[in-house]
């Protein structure tokens, strides 16, 4: 049964570099607020009753015939089941091509000195474990508020964000979901404006 209550069921701040595992019931709305602006929020979606029915970035891109996510984007699984829909967005567009940072990919991109810096995959593994989400269950995520221009010549870059303090995105769950969040700790590129900051999670269901 779809829930239409507007009761605030969740209101929490996720500190810079920290994460969260949120269970959102079907029909529930989860708002992610970029409190200080230009903060990438790496997010994964799983059917709460079947972890293998999980978000698929590139199936989502294909089904909407467009690279960037915004209001109206249907977030689909590898089975093409609709997991959630973006129902509100004051930022304008979000990335789902760039994936998450990891200690290992940081080494490739920035050098050995980054091997022990905190990274999104550490957060995904830490918070995902509570739901049985391990390395094999991780997949390519959404990067809310992150700006990764993809060009007609086949280029891709990470650029300063389009977001600003107080901008938010809201998703409505199409089924019971686990939403796994890493508030990105990356300091080696402009995805967090070089300075990771807290976000707010606001759930209504």
């Amino acid at each position, binding site marked *: 049964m779809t829930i239409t209550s507007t009761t605030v069921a969740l209101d929490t701040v996720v500190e810079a570099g920290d994460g969260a595992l949120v269970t959102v019931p079907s029909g529930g709305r989860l708002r992610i607020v970029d409190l200080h602006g230009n903060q990438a929020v790496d997010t994964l979606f799983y059917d709460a009753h079947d*972890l*293998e*029915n*999980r978000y*698929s*970035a*590139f*199936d989502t*891109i*294909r089904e909407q*015939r*467009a*690279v*960037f996510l*915004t209001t109206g984007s249907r977030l689909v699984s*590898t*089975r*093409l089941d609709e997991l959630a829909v973006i129902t509100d967005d004051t930022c304008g*567009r979000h990335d789902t*091509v*760039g*994936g*998450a940072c*990891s200690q*290992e*990919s940081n*080494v*490739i*991109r920035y*050098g050995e000195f980054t091997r022990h810096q905190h990274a999104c995959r550490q957060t995904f593994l830490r918070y995902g474990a509570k739901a049985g989400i391990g*390395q*094999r*269950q*991780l*997949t*390519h995520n959404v990067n809310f508020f992150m700006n*990764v*221009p*993809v*060009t*007609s010549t*086949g*280029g*891709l*870059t*990470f650029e300063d964000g389009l977001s600003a303090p107080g901008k938010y995105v809201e998703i409505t769950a199409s089924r019971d979901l686990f939403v796994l969040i890493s508030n990105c700790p990356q300091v080696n590129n402009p995805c967090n404006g070089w300075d990771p900051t807290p976000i707010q999670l606001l759930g209504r269901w």
Partner: protein
Amino acid sequence: MTPASTPASSPAPAHTHEIPGSAAWSAPVRAGRTLTLTALADGANATVLIIGADRLDRLNIPDTLKSQMSARIKPGMVLMSDRGLALATVMTSSLDWHDCLTGALPDQLLLLELAKHGFGEADLHACINFFSKVSVADDPRASLTYIPDHANAGDTVTLRADQDLLIFVSTAPHALSDGPAASIALQLETPDPAEDPAPDPELCEEAIRALRLTRELIA
């Protein structure tokens, strides 16, 4: 008899195979071997998944793209894993754009092939659609358009395994194509140990780092 002609130093025999349209194939590909795919008809598509030597570390398209600042797969790119290692290098190709942004329709082809090796739905990471192109518009949402017949019969791509791999290939038509399925020829070859190995193609600094780490750690 010169050492180069003794059986011990002869290269392993090549393996050739033709995958009909809308079929799937998989095989282990040892480090150092090359896999050449050839389109046998216009508009061919070869959807490829790769799993690394430890059977957990998979092809990671986002990491491959962002490390090499590209939204397509082209010659001179290293295909990177979840754990920052080089899986394979795109040595040569007659095409400079292979789609990696639009995935594949859920069908039994890749799933059954994965299951033969003990893998399943959880391993459906992002794939490469070799021989296919989906163009990106410079509009606010980066809209996508499938380009029919990007590949012609005879187009090729050659990958070099940079560690022991499992490679999965589906010849289902691209998910956005309304054309017929096409066959793909494949050739697996081992370099002749009597000859110098083929040099790396021109690579960016990040790709060189991934190859170096892989050779130091596992290859």
